């Protein structure tokens, strides 16, 4: 009588439906924590990468040189992502177009801009990966937990109906065990919602910086292309 019910015992004693609900919630919770930590790492890296790349980009070094450095990095097996990927997409397209005869300056800029848009989309996909999962864990797992609880309480009251004397002790373990499902739902949902909001804001900020980089870079390219055309015309 001095032993309190341990949580594990309670869970083991739960009905199959409640156990299934709990297992689902546990899996959702583990998965969402996995994704949370992964997102933290990826977003931090993307941020550091972008800062580093912008430093190099505006340091005044030759852009062709920058492009070549990236190519050797790819050959060595590194993944190029973030700002540098945008730069490479735009620069590659621009140099391809500028090699063609009688290319209009505007068309060249437009083409490289389009290439950078595509790269930007790819980046945003990469950064936003798994965020929808966090959102749905955050919004549905309290309901799933609640379902488990209602089901468990339903059962413990049904058991009460058949017994002749109604004591609190007859229903208390069942209710306690059912409430664990709600607790687990909340445990899964709260970090997921917090993380989703935070990550969504961070990804937005990063994408904005990417976009402004694209604009700045296409401004550069435009100047370059007009200078080229003028040289050719003379």
């Amino acid at each position, binding site marked *: 009588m*001095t032993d*309190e019910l341990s*949580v*594990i015992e309670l869970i083991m004693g739960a009905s199959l439906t409640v156990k299934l609900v709990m297992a689902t919630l546990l899996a959702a919770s*583990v998965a969402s*924590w996995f994704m949370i930590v*992964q997102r933290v*790492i990826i977003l931090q890296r993307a941020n550091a990468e972008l800062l580093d790349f912008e430093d190099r980009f505006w340091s005044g070094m030759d852009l062709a040189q920058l492009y070549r450095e990236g190519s050797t990095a790819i050959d060595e097996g590194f993944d190029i992502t973030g700002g540098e990927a945008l730069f490479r997409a735009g620069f590659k397209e621009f140099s391809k177009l500028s090699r063609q005869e009688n290319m209009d300056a505007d068309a060249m800029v437009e083409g490289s801009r389009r290439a950078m848009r595509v790269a930007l989309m790819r980046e945003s996909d990469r950064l936003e990966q798994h965020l929808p999962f966090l959102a749905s864990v955050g919004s549905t797992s309290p309901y799933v937990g609640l379902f488990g609880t209602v089901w468990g309480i339903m059962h413990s009251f049904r058991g009460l109906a058949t017994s002749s004397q109604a004591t609190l002790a007859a229903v208390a373990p069942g209710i306690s065990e059912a409430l664990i499902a709600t607790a687990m739902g909340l445990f899964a949902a709260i970090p997921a919602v917090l993380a989703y909001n935070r990550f969504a804001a961070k990804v937005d900020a990063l994408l904005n910086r990417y976009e402004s980089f694209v604009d700045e870079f296409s401004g550069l390219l435009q100047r370059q292309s007009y200078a080229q055309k003028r040289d050719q015309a003379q």
Partner: protein
Amino acid sequence: MNSDRLLIIGIPALVAVLVHLFFVIVMEGGWTVAAPTVSAKPQVIQASLVSLSKADQTAAKPTSKPKPKPKPKPKPKPKPESVKALEPKPIPRPDPIIPEPVLADDNKTSTENQLARLQKELLDGLMDLPEAEGQALAKEVSEVQQVAALMQARITQNWRRPPSARNGMEVLLEISLVPTGDVVGISVSSSSGSIAFDRSAIAAVERVAQFSEVAVLPISDFERYFRRFPLRFKPEDLRY
């Protein structure tokens, strides 16, 4: 690149599992913290329970003399059951001994003498126990048990059971002591269902008022076993 993959998948997986493990441990630990302290004490107290009920008889007997004979027989049987789980050895000894002093002292009605003898018997029995079991905690446990036995004897002496007491009734009190042994709190943590019975148990502790025995214990043992401890009152010797 491979190591990068590992970093991006391995670290989050590790952290996710650790977070959940930590939570489970905290929750399990948090829930069971109360249980170990309680279970350590019942050992001590349960031993006293058995003797409590017997001693209680001793207390009851001086007032009602016709009963002494029938009681000794029923006692041996119920007691081993309750005692069994904890310490089979010490209990059988005190049990046979207690009825004797009661009967012998009945005439003299010198409860002091009786108490002294009772305590000595319990002490001897308890001191033998750790050696027989010969294990790590032996010394500390024996000290604690000695003190518990003394306390139990004192409470037993002071317990007047109400007529409504029945076999199978059981009240669990939660006693708070300060290091001098003064009782600073008594609460019923599990009622027997009979208010008179519960009150008799509380009154027994109140009458003792100070358990000076605990002063001999090192403070760490006091904190561990007697700062708050459960005390069970359970008559098993009644015939009805």
